[in-house]
């Protein structure tokens, strides 16, 4: 059942992403990207990341894409002509993207079990069981502490300093956006 739902949403995500990069109007492309992000949120729920799914919808599909739509409407780009590059670039793009996807798909065949197997055949490496924790760690953690608690514990304990530095990053982004969008640049 989970797998059927996963494949349905995966197909929606890939189709919407393809339509997003092929649509002529930036507005339509942005709306297809929202569709991709919402189906990715559904996939996050299937992968035991409910909190991430919620902030995917709120931050990505909500805030960031609304910002994009505001800018597209502000600049009145709704009916821009086709902006695809020439045929030679299209051919080169197909080759590059095809090679990249083949390479990445080959990498996904490297499951942790296969990697652990190959590591165990090297005598100098440690026991693979210590390298790869078996099974569904996230599911166990969220069963023990709750969905948000399982994320909050590492965020505010192990990653506290990076979390605080994030606020400096956001402040810099705010100041940068205000300065850049002012009249006399």
């Amino acid at each position, binding site marked *: 059942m989970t797998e059927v739902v996963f494949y349905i949403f995966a197909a929606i995500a890939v189709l919407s992403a393809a339509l997003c990069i092929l649509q002529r109007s930036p507005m339509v492309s942005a709306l297809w*990207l929202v569709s991709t992000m919402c189906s990715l949120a559904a996939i996050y729920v299937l992968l035991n990341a409910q909190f991430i799914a919620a902030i995917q919808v709120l931050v990505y599909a909500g805030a960031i894409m609304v910002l994009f739509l505001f800018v597209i409407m502000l600049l009145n780009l709704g009916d821009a002509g086709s902006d*695809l590059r020439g045929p030679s670039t299209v051919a080169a793009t197909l080759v590059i993207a095809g090679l990249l996807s083949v390479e990445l798909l080959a990498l996904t065949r490297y499951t942790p079990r296969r990697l652990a197997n190959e590591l165990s055949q090297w005598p100098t490496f440690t026991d693979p069981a210590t390298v790869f924790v078996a099974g569904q760690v996230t599911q166990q953690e969220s069963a023990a502490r709750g969905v948000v608690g399982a994320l909050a514990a590492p965020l505010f304990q192990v990653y506290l300093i990076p979390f605080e530095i994030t606020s400096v990053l956001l402040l810099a982004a705010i100041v940068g956006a205000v300065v850049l969008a002012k009249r006399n640049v």
Partner: protein
Amino acid sequence: MLLGPALALSAILFSLGVAGVLLRRNAIVLFMCIELMLNAVNLSFVALAQLHGASGHVMVFFVMTVAAAEAAVGLAIIIGIFRHKQSVDLGNINLLRG
């Protein structure tokens, strides 16, 4: 578990994002393709977090923060360019050409 299929979906989405960046000349669509690539990476983080604990989720959190900051500053730059050139076509933007 769905680890392999999720990583495969992530690979396909990332390649689509790269194709979009190479194909389009509209700066805003190019930014959206970059967001698509960030989303693909987030998906692989979440898929691998099933094995390695919630650190992957924390990384997704940070990637989303960086994406929000990048979108705000990038779109401000695009608005600034539009004021100068009346266009967001990358073919017209060659201020830094030597």
